[in-house]
C-alpha cells in the first residue's frame, strides 16, 4: 500500500470510529429517556446529583460570570468611547452574557467541574466492577447512575446560567458605573431597551442543551471506561475535550437557528 492509501485508510477509520461513537452516545440518550419515563425515579439520587452539579458549582460560576461581565464592560467602554457611545456598555454586557457567554462559559465550567467528575465516578465504578455488581443484582445501571446525572445536568446548567447572567451584568454595572463613571440610569435603561426576554430565554434553552451534552458525554465515557486507573484518566480527558468541543460547535448551530 502506498502512503496516500494508508493515510486515507487511517482517515477513514478515524471518521468511522467517531461516527460509531456518536451513534452510541445517541443510543445511550434514547435508553436514558426510556428509563426516565419508567417509574420509580431515584429521587434521592437525583437530588444528590443536582446538589453536586448545581449547588456546588455556584462559586466557580459566580466567579466566571462576574469577571466576564467586568472585562466586557472594560473592553466595551474603550471601544464605544471612540464614538461616544459609552451608554451602550450596559446593554452590550447584558446581551453578551445572556445570549452567549452566560450559557457557554457556565457549561464549560460545569464540564470541567461536574462532567469530569461524572466520568471519574462511573469510570471507577466500571473498573472496580461496581457496575457489574449492579447488573448482578438485577439493577439497571442506566436507571441508577445515568438518569439522575442527566436530569441534574439538564436542570441545573440553565439555573447556573441565570446566576452567571445576573452576576455578569452586576459585574458590568460595577465596572461601568463605579469605575468608569457611566451614568447608572443610562446603563440600566439601555439594558431594558435592548435586551428582550427572548434573548434570556434562548440562552437558557442553549444551556439546557449544553447540560445534556456534558452529562451525556461524561456518563458515556465513564460508563465505557476500560483498563484500570489509567483508563479512567484517559476517559476523563476524552470526556472533557469532547464535551467542550461539542458545546462550542453546537453553540454555533443553535445560535444560527434561534437568533
Amino acid at each position: 500500500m502506498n502512503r496516500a492509501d494508508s493515510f486515507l485508510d487511517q482517515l477513514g477509520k478515524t471518521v468511522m470510529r467517531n461516527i460509531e461513537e456518536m451513534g452510541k452516545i445517541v443510543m445511550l440518550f434514547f435508553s436514558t429517556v426510556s428509563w426516565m419515563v419508567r417509574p420509580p425515579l431515584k429521587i434521592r439520587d437525583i437530588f444528590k446529583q443536582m446538589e453536586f452539579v448545581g449547588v456546588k458549582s455556584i462559586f466557580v460560576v459566580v466567579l466566571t460570570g462576574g469577571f466576564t461581565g467586568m472585562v466586557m464592560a472594560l473592553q466595551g467602554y474603550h471601544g464605544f468611547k471612540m464614538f461616544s457611545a459609552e451608554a451602550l456598555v450596559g446593554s452590550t454586557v447584558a446581551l453578551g452574557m445572556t445570549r452567549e457567554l452566560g450559557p457557554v462559559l457556565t457549561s464549560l465550567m460545569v464540564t470541567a467541574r461536574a462532567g469530569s467528575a461524572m466520568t471519574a465516578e462511573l469510570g471507577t465504578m466500571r473498573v472496580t466492577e461496581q457496575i457489574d455488581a449492579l447488573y448482578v443484582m438485577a439493577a439497571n445501571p442506566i436507571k441508577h447512575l445515568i438518569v439522575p446525572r442527566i436530569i441534574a445536568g439538564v436542570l441545573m446548567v440553565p439555573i447556573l446560567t441565570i446566576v452567571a447572567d445576573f452576576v455578569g451584568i452586576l459585574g458590568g454595572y460595577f465596572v461601568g458605573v463605579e469605575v468608569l463613571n457611566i451614568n447608572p440610569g443610562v446603563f440600566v435603561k439601555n439594558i431594558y431597551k435592548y435586551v428582550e426576554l427572548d434573548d434570556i430565554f434562548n440562552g437558557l434553552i442553549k444551556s439546557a442543551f449544553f447540560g445534556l451534552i456534558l452529562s451525556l458525554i461524561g456518563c458515556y465515557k465513564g460508563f465505557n471506561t476500560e483498563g484500570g486507573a489509567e483508563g479512567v484518566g484517559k476517559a476523563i480527558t476524552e470526556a472533557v475535550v469532547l464535551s467542550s468541543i461539542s458545546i462550542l460547535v453546537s453553540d454555533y448551530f443553535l445560535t444560527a437557528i434561534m437568533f
Partner: protein
Amino acid sequence: MIKLVDLYKSFGDVHVLRGLNLEIEYGKTTSIIGRSGSGKSVLLKHIIGLLKPERGHVFIDDVDVTKLDEKEMNEIRKRFGMLFQGSALFDSMTVGENVAFPLREHSRLKESEIKQIVIERLRAVGLTGVEDKMPSEMSGGMKKRVGLARAIAMLPEIVLFDEPTTGLDPIMAEAINQLIVETQKNFNLTCIVISHDIHSIYTVSHKIAMLYDGVIVEYGTPDELRASTNPVTIQFLSGNIEGPITIV
C-alpha cells in the same frame, strides 16, 4: 442444574475458556480451583451473564441464558447472589446501604425489617456497628465480608463466591467457611465457590472442579480429588513446583 456446555471465551489472543463443560448440582457447594489467571472469575461471570461466550451454552434449569435479553436475564439474576473478587462495594453508599441494596431493589420489606436483616447479615460475617461507615473506611478483609453479607442478603437460591476467604486472617477465614457451610445447609443453597485456599475448599465443598488450560480436567468429591491420579491435580493440590504445570 446449572450446565456449562462447550464454552469458548477469549480476550484478544488470550484463549481463556476452550470448550469447557461442567454440570453443577443444586443444593450443593461446588468449588472451582485452578491457577491464578486460569479463568475462574471469567467462568463465574458466564454463569450470571456478565460475559457472553463466543461459543457454547450456559443452561440454568434448561434455559440457555446466553440467549436471553436483559429483562429475561434479570429474572434469573434475582435468584442469584454474588461476591466479587474485589468486593465491588458501592463506594458512594454506606456499608448498611450496600447490604440493604438488593432488599430495597427487589423486596417489599418495610424499612425497619430491612434494617434488622442488615444488622443480622453483618453480624453473621463478624461485623457490628459498621452500618454507617463508608466502604473506604474499611480494610480489605472487612470489605470482603460486607460483600459477602450483601451477596447473601436476600438468601438467594444460588450464591457465587469469588475467593471469599482471600485476605482474611486464619480465624476469620475459618468463620467464613463455617458461615458458608451453615447457610448452605440451613437454606439448602447452591453455592459455587472459587478459592485458592485448599483447606477451605475441603471444608466447604461437596464437589470440586479443577480448571486447567481452559477446560475442567478433574471433577469429583473432595475424597475423589485427594485420591486423584491426574498429575495436574496432584501437583496443584500439593503445591509442588515440579510437574506438568509450569510456572511461566
